[in-house]
């Protein structure tokens, strides 16, 4: 972000030059500009360059983008209504009419698997976003200001952190799940989002807090303080730009955890309710048909595994790109 500020004057100057019709740049000037452009490097740009060279990470990124694309555009990609039951074709193997076969009440599994991508992606994505905002905000405030503020916030976080997150998710989903039975299944998704946000932030808060604790003592922050920058400016201009890469790594691992937990809650019957399709639910229902309708559990298992692998490799890739020294 600091970099962008430095670029601005030159850009405005150039624009001014063009408006004043000073003519095209000479080859020498153009070359100089080219060099200046290539030499401009920011932590973000360097990280992106390293990330692009890592084929596993790029493959993971593409997979994640495809998954989001499929989930968003499911209404244009599906073949049959997900709730339509065809009693003449129960538990069918994959065929031209039903690409992934049908389930035990004759619903098209291709369409259900497509729509089934939505709950895990949506819930984990929103849950992670809230986790990141809460965790970063509280962690920054606690770590940067220290003293009494830090003491109170850190103790509250300790209690939340000691609480086994999965159990908290389990009891919240089971006690409050039934109360959120509205908007055709969106209510259940909402309770899971809230649950994940509550479960997720303490871990990230501790991470951000320790980062800002160590960064607060470094010279560039001291320099910023010496020239009279406000707290807000130091946090937003100096601390955050140096942290967001590492926070992004934590976020992608949080998404993995949330996708995993969402599937497990579905397994215990606490996730998104019927007739809404959900990959975890499809997987569990499919295992009941194991042995004679394998397409019913193979495809959801495959999709869930690919999702989890993709986000894991994405997180690893971002970490290697942001912090090359940590590479094993």
């Amino acid at each position, binding site marked *: 972000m600091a970099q962008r500020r430095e670029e601005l004057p030159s850009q405005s100057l150039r624009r001014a030059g063009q408006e004043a019709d000073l003519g095209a740049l000479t080859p020498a000037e153009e070359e100089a500009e080219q060099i200046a452009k290539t030499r401009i490097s920011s932590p973000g740009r360097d990280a992106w360059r390293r990330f692009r060279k890592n084929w596993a990470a790029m493959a993971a990124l593409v997979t994640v983008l495809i998954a989001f694309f499929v989930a968003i555009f499911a209404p244009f990609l599906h073949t049959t209504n997900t709730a339509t039951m065809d009693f003449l074709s129960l538990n069918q193997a994959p065929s031209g009419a039903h690409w992934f076969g049908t389930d035990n009440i004759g619903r098209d599994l291709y369409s259900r698997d497509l729509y089934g991508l939505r709950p895990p992606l949506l819930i984990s994505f929103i849950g992670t976003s809230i986790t990141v905002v809460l965790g970063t905000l509280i962690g920054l405030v606690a770590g940067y200001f220290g003293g009494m503020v830090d003491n109170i916030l850190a103790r509250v976080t300790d209690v939340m952190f*000691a609480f086994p997150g999965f159990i908290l998710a389990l009891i919240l989903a089971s*006690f409050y799940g039934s109360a959120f039975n509205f908007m055709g299944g969106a209510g259940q998704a909402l309770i899971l989002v809230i649950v994940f946000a509550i479960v997720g932030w303490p871990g990230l808060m501790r991470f951000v807090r320790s980062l800002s604790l160590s960064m607060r003592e470094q010279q560039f922050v001291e320099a910023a303080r010496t020239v009279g920058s406000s707290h807000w400016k130091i946090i937003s201009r100096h601390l955050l730009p140096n942290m967001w890469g590492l926070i992004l790594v934590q976020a992608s691992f949080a998404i993995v955890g949330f996708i995993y937990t969402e599937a497990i809650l579905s397994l215990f019957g606490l996730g998104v309710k019927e007739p809404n399709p959900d990959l975890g639910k499809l997987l569990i229902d499919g295992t009941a048909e194991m042995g004679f309708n394998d397409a019913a559990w193979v495809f959801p298992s495959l999709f869930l595994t690919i999702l989890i692998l993709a986000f894991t490799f994405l997180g690893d890739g971002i970490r290697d790109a942001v912090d090359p020294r940590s590479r094993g």
Partner: protein
Amino acid sequence: MTNMAAFAVRRFLAMVIVLYLIATLVFLIAHAAPVNPVYQALDQKYTPRAAAQLRHEFGLDQPLWRQYSNYIGGLLHGDLGKSESRSTLGESVSGMLKRGVPVTLKLGFMALMLALVVGLPVGLISAIKQNSIIDHGTQGLMIFVYAVPTFVLAPLAQLVIGAQLKWLPVTGWGDPGVLGYKEMIMPVCIYAAGLAGYFSKSFRSFLLEVLNQDYIRTARAKGLQERVVLYTHAIKNTLLPLASIVGPVVAYLITGAFITETLFSIPGVGNFTVESTVNSDYPVIEATVVLLAAFVVVVNFLTDIFYALVDPRVRL
């Protein structure tokens, strides 16, 4: 040593406060919930009279603060109350826990041991042979078993090894005789798979980090055998970071077993915790959650103490 004692006391007090707050939080979550446990317990036999009687029996007709003090007092005395759900109505929670906890701990510790026995040597070999085919092959496999979720791996194993090849029983736990051990193999291996991948991945990177240090170069430069460098210089220095990842794994050993227990119908804590959440069985949920949280908090406390003993800087 005095500041060690002060550190231990300070951490112990913090632990007690955290435990108390967790117990309170669980109580509040359970009692603010918009579900009626009495209604669920009676189900078909619901009459206002029976409900009132059950309410009285479980003390649910008392004011909330009274229920709270009963609950905290019970916890302090080790009295965890009685089950309120239909299938186990009136059974004491401590009895249920006494049956479930050993099963879960056995599963967890066997899986942990297996994961350490497999994961650490694999991590060691791939660190020594860094960037060789062996390294890439084993690490690829380890990342795979680490990332493939249990709920995918378990049904697959049950289908192939259990139902089709008939080598091992599909579900169950602890029947007497040879079958008992056979039943344990699959769940323990499945539970250990993810942990083994995690350990080997982490141990490899710890070891590589240490092997890049100056003192390793010094040890090699003065002509020590590679074996001595590796075992006395390198591995010793990976023990502390290793403890920092094994500690939390131990703390979450019971919670981590939930999925394995459910998929293999193992009668452990996870199994009846899940059942009690579905049945809104307050006393069982309160007791198990407090117990599991206590386990996590106590193991974290012990890890901290261990750290402080090994690394004096932590005590400050």
